[in-house]
């Protein structure tokens, strides 16, 4: 079980003893997770298991029934606009050019349009979006759209990001490409990331630690550290080590594996 770390600890982000119910049904029961500086941590669980609810609480869109959220040691429970959040859909606005979409968090913070555009455009190269500035989202492929959405998330906060199944809508090949790109970018931009996934392989490949949210109501069933240096290549996904992690995760999710 995770110990709750708040003031005085090194954790960038921590959610402590979060409990949340809807209409008398408890969705999350005493869930505590934390995210350290520069870490990529994934939250793995079955659909409808309360993962998105936890993210809504952490991002401040929802208030928990009990429990607290800390960002850099300061309490931010129920305060929206502190932690960047990328939702399941890319949610690029169809009526704005890609650069204006990406610059949205800067505009919200009060930047002038030209400033915001320039600041956003400066990152296009790094995110593999060069030349796409004045295209509309409908002209971009699925992978490109996810990159743009991630850049928008990054421009909101270059410290902590919550990603809710960011790559789940992509086909396997695009997914593989974007995983490699993602790990590469993450090494350069030092964003601490907490992401939701229901894809076990994705969780092992991308994360430093994996939390398993299981049961009804949802509880943290296990916390598994993936001790493999990044960047990780495709070989890793085919290794014995990888399979051991996979077995460990499946078992802690309550799924029997044949020995």
């Amino acid at each position: 079980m995770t110990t709750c770390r708040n003031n005085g600890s090194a954790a960038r982000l921590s959610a402590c003893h979060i409990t949340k119910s809807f209409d008398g049904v408890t969705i999350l029961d005493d869930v505590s997770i934390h995210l350290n500086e520069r870490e990529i941590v994934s939250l793995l669980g079955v659909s409808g298991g309360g993962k998105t609810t936890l993210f809504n609480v952490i991002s401040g869109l929802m208030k928990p029934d009990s429990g607290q959220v800390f960002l850099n040691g300061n309490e931010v429970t129920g305060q929206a606009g502190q932690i960047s959040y990328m939702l399941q859909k890319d949610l690029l606005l169809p009526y704005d050019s890609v650069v204006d979409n990406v610059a949205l968090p800067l505009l919200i913070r009060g930047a002038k349009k030209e400033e915001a555009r320039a600041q956003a455009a400066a990152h296009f190269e790094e995110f593999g979006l060069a030349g796409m500035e004045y295209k509309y989202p409908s002209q971009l492929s699925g992978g490109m759209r996810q990159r743009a959405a991630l850049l928008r998330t990054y421009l909101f906060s270059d410290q902590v990001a919550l990603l809710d199944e960011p790559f789940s809508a992509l086909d396997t090949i695009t997914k593989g490409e974007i995983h490699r790109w993602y790990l590469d970018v993450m090494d350069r931009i030092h964003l601490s990331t907490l992401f939701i996934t229901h894809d076990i392989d994705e969780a092992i490949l991308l994360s430093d630690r994996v939390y398993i949210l299981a049961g009804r109501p949802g509880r943290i069933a296990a916390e598994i550290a993936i001790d493999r240096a990044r960047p990780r290549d495709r070989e890793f996904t085919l290794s014995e080590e990888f399979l051991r992690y996979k077995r460990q995760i499946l078992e802690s999710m309550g799924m029997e594996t044949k020995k």
Partner: protein
Amino acid sequence: MNKKADRVISKVAPLCLISAILILWQIASSTGLVPGYMLPSPISVVKALINDAPLLADHAKTTLTESFLGLSTAIVMAFVTAGLMDRYLFLEKAVYPLLVVTQTVPTVAIAPLLVLWLGYGIAPKVVLVILTCYFPLTISLLTGFANADKDAINLMRAMGATRWQIFWHIKLKSSMNQFFSGLRVSASYAIVGAVISEWLGGLGGLGVYMTRVKKSFAFDKMFAVIFLICFISLALMKLVDLLEKKTMPWKYLKENGEERY
């Protein structure tokens, strides 16, 4: 290739039908099947249209001014009320039924009252145009605001956006599609509204001209005005289309066959 052929057909087909109707009509008139005092031939209508062109242009100017003033006022009012109704739920619940009720009052019934209250000038016409255009515009905007993507709004909230920023970036922009379909309807309503209110008395305008030529049984001129009104309405709708394309370039991307990157 096929698409091109499709496009040609969709343009040519209606033209064929219209020409056929006009030819039949002309034949019916010239052979004396229908007497000229009941239904003037297309050629005599066109002649009337040409002969009266300067006079018609003058009257059209009055009607267009009234329509334009009324329509633009209605647009502003629609944006303000729809915006307020979206912001304050109580206001929406209170005002919406009233809006529907006002829409059931027949235009022809209020027009004489407006003349009574506001005189023979331009004012009652503009007010009538406002009354006819305001409702479809407001409803289309309200629908647009209500249909804005909830997830996009949540994303904006997570980014710490204010209500106004959410309104501006999400609700307003995503309702443009709805707004333009409302505007297309309203543009033709505006002309018809102005003409109807001119029937009931006024100093100029196509409606005034219409009542005059009707009283002198100049049916060719009567038809000439009707044609002109149709033409103006169509031109206005076309203008709305152009405006829509200018305002929403993203909507027309796929039609241009642009590739995805």
